[in-house]
């Protein structure tokens, strides 16, 4: 796992009720028992840590927020496009 993945998993654990659960890139966010307000906090933490903006909407189901790996991939893209800008 690279730095982006490690940092995101660290952020997830910070907001989880049971932070010692096993997390891999394949883990689904719903299996981590993350509720909507926790997810808003997680997105905020990710934005703050990586200096990116994620226009996440709690009312929409988006593929980027299905698994840990999809979040990592989305953030990687955002970091990349920010560096290119």
């Amino acid at each position, binding site marked *: 796992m690279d730095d982006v993945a490690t940092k995101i998993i660290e952020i997830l654990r910070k907001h989880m009720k049971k932070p010692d659960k096993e997390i891999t890139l394949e883990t689904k966010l719903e299996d981590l028992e993350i509720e909507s*307000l926790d*997810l808003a906090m997680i*997105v905020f933490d990710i934005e703050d840590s990586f200096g990116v*903006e994620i*226009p996440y*909407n*709690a*009312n*929409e189901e988006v593929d980027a927020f299905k698994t840990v790996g999809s979040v990592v991939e989305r953030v990687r893209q955002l970091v990349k496009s920010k560096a290119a800008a």
Partner: protein
Amino acid sequence: MTQSNGSGSSGARRVVVTGMGAVTPVGNTVDEFWASLKAGRCGVDKIVGFDLEDLYIHIGAEVKGFDPKDRLANIKDRTLPMADRYSQFAGAAALEAMKHSGLPVPVPDPYRTACIIGSGAGGLNTLELAYRDLFIRKKKATNPLTLLRIIGSSASAHVGIEFGVRGPTFGTVSACATASHSIGLTYQFIKSGAVDVGIAGAAEAVMNYGTMKAWQALRVLSAQGCFPFAKKRNGTVLAEGAGILVLEELEHAKARGATIIAELMGFGMSSDAKDMVNPDIEGPKYAMRQALSEAKLAPSDIGYLNAHGTATSINDINETRAIKAVFEGAAKDLAISSTKSMHGHLLGAGGAIEAIASIKAITEGFVPPTIGLDEADPECDLDYVPNVGREKKVTYAMSNSFAFGGLNAVLIFGPPPA
């Protein structure tokens, strides 16, 4: 003037509506507001009132063409025209409501009159300007009126000063249930005999960069529009404005020959005591049942329900479930609409203009629509009066307000007592 003893064979005091006033994104008076609701006009548009800077949500339902110099001309309270926008909205709506009621000004029995006008957040526009002055422009002091503009009770204080109200005067705070709580409390004050008249409602004006940032961070705003109960809904849309009712004990209103618009028949309130953002059906169910019980009505008596209907994915399903649980077999025949589809979410003030919409449904025999409802969510399967309003004789109407924190308030209105 002495306390009137109340009416009816049971001797219980009854509460009637004798005046209404509104400032909304779809009309700056009750008549304009109602004409828009009838026509299905939408007040949601690109925000123009402040610089959007880096916000990615660009839409809101702003009050348009509101000129405080015009609406607050010739008033007694010299400070109201200098107050925060939320207090100005309250003042304008209260002036309209009081004029409508025909009550003399100053009120003739000041200690037996209440002025309960809430706000979800108070003068946040003022707070933002003051903080910009202090933190960005490095000014040494705020405008001297800053504190008075910010406080959440300033709308009630200003309106109380204007009309000479000396009885219970304060603001309520319960996020999106604020107005329904203030109207409900005023109703209870009149019923209990504490006062005979009450100016009640709420005002909100929080359309500014900082507040929008905070809402955006909660991830519940739509970038497209407010589409309650629709499959495509993806969040609510912030709005601003005020709604004010003049409530009065029935015999008091009759004695002065007032025109009685409607009766406030029941009020229910509860708290989910569960979660700040995820509502439960138990709290809303209890509040609706309590209001029905107080009004001595069966669910099937309700002809129109103005839903809380915020267009968030969770509220609309939860509210639909709660309505089904309370109305059972009558749910399918109930005309329900979320007028937020047109005027957006006025937050603390929502319950007041939605109460006015519910009263108008009774007096005009017309149910306003839920616009933008091209395809309903399969889990929202009741009659939400999609897209076009309809003529319907409505005898009793219910208005739901369910706030963040699980705070619920429900009002039931009926026709003027025979």
